[in-house]
């Protein structure tokens, strides 16, 4: 039966090679960029600074965890900024603070995360019930979140005095702040969800071929909503983390995280069209972005140029990462 073995083997050999190449791009880019900065700046390669980079990556990592699931489905989520703002205000008003007598501690954090979850849920429902593209549904939800946050802000900055929440950003364990460990746990949990739960695998499958799931009798809508809710929970946690870092609940807590998280995920190798990538890819992407931001400051690039150089390198990194997958008739949107 030489024929069958030929039939079976030939394509498999091909695609394995492709797969290994494909995933190697971003980590290689990360290492290369790290080495370049390390060569250019002694401070950059100091242990302190590496710790600092990792610590600084914590919030972005958590937010990116959330957005990764949405991107895997082929949807997009721009609600991070608003959801984080609303959750930041929520948590700062629920733990010990200067605005009211609340002191709910962990419960406050849980409520904030749940609120994030609820926001995500609403985005998801708008997507599946009203059939509004996620781009718009989440953009709208972001505005709603900011509005809710502004309502809660009511003119006076809520400063938190809860030592536990503040401690998350200050206390350290094995050289890294608690927030960093929280982010690490999020990545682990995210990875487990992605690999071992129906939710994670279906999110992946929805990005791969949604119509096939329907043909197989899978009701995808609940999973879509759940993915947005999960992402919202991650944003909520991100909002809590920012609050802990800043010691105050800011409406702007999530400013810029939406686009940075998408950038990080894409740089890490998650496709905007869905169906490829994952939490570990995104973790690499987050590190890439953080190394860049930090490195540019360390080597002393003028603040005027930093954004531009960063944009250029991100584009270059993605370009380099896609080289192994380049085909003539490839669809790139």
């Amino acid at each position, binding site marked *: 039966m030489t024929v069958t073995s030929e039939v079976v083997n030939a394509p498999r050999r091909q695609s394995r090679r492709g797969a290994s190449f494909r995933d190697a791009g971003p980590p290689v880019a990360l290492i290369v960029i790290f080495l370049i900065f390390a060569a250019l700046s002694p401070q950059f390669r100091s242990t302190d600074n590496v710790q*600092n980079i990792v610590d600084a990556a914590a919030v972005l990592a958590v937010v990116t965890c959330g957005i990764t699931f949405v991107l895997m489905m082929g949807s997009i989520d721009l609600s991070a900024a608003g959801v984080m703002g609303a959750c930041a205000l929520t948590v700062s008003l629920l733990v010990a603070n200067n605005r009211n007598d609340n002191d709910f501690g962990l419960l406050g954090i849980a409520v904030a995360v749940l609120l994030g979850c609820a926001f995500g849920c609403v985005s998801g429902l708008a997507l599946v019930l009203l059939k509004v593209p996620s781009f718009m549904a989440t953009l709208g939800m972001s505005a709603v979140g900011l509005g809710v946050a502004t309502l809660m802000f009511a003119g006076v900055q809520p400063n938190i005095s809860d030592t536990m929440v503040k401690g998350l950003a200050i206390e350290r364990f094995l050289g890294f702040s608690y927030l960093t460990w929280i982010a690490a746990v999020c990545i682990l949990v995210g990875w487990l969800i992605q690999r071992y739960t129906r939710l994670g695998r279906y999110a992946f499958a929805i990005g791969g071929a949604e119509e096939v799931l329907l043909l197989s009798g899978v009701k995808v809508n609940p999973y879509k909503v759940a993915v947005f809710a999960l992402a919202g929970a991650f944003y909520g946690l991100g909002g809590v983390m920012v609050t802990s870092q800043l010691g105050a609940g800011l409406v*702007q807590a999530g*400013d810029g995280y939406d686009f940075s998280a998408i950038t990080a995920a894409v740089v890490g190798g998650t496709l905007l069209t869905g169906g490829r990538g994952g939490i570990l890819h995104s973790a690499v992407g987050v590190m890439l972005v953080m190394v860049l931001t*930090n490195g540019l*400051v360390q080597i002393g690039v003028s*603040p005027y140029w930093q954004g531009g150089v960063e944009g250029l390198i991100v584009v270059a990194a993605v370009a380099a990462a896609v080289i192994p997958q380049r085909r003539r008739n490839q669809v790139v949107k």
Partner: protein
Amino acid sequence: SEQAAGGNDTAAGGSAACDPSAVKLVGQVRNESNPYEASWLAGGDAFAKSVGLTQERLTYDGDSTKQQEQISQILAGDTKCLVMNVLPNGDSDTAPIVKGADQAGAYLVTQWNKPADLKPADYKTWLSHITYNGVESGQQIGDALATAIGGSGGIIALQGVLDTAAAKDRFVGLQNSLKKNTGVTLLDQQAANFSRAEALTVTKTLLTKHGDKVKGIWAANDDMALGALEALQQAGKAGKVAVVGIDAVPDAVSAVKAGTMTATVSSDGSWQGGIGLAIGFCAATGKLKVEDIAAANRAFFAEQFLITKDNAAEFAAPKTNPADFECGNVFNRVAGPLT
């Protein structure tokens, strides 16, 4: 004609005094989600209440185009007794606001941002432009910082939104201070866009970059100073590095009082919110003739104070004196003409 559709109104310019109850008060700031601007709007509300009116609150999310859009929409309505107290988003936004208001005959007071060559004196209903002397405040806190670190050592600077006059003036102030305090060296300067969160990350990075060489942090506003304070705390350097800011937001004043922050400079949001409307209201009701306003008061620096540990208690709960808003007193806080 080439007049705007809305422009064929008779330019009011004080031709007929308005009935106090017919005056429409508009206060416009970036957003309601930071303490400074929230207190501005609250100040405007308080003044409006004192004259039996309400203030129409407008916010534009720091979005220049949205600000223009709102202004032109407001000016497309009834502009006869309109008084606007506006915080232009940037220098460039002032000109169209001024021209629009002038054409429509609405009374206008602007604050903070204005290009140097645009002068209220050249317009009829642009009553005044109020700002604080950024060069001076930047220098004041720079000097305070230099003193706090004992006259020598390295500092880092956190700049505001790079294309605003406030950010630039304040930084010029710092540079002046550095010229004077030759022992102090500026190790690094980065933009943190007046944002607490950005200041946090930038400071952390700069702290690892320069390590113990950093003795002080100069921030172009208090929000960034507070972010820097958090960064210091997270780096385990709280109390070891002096921090200064500008604006005297409540948190910063308490930090100064508690000694964690070295100094800040007062800029009184609730007074600013009230005074702009007050000047406009006085002009609209005819109690203040535009021609009578002294040239020096058409564009002026308002009084500001350096707040340090010694005097922080006085500023802890800023009180606005209603008397400041009486038509005779509206120019009480003038510290000098705009230079």
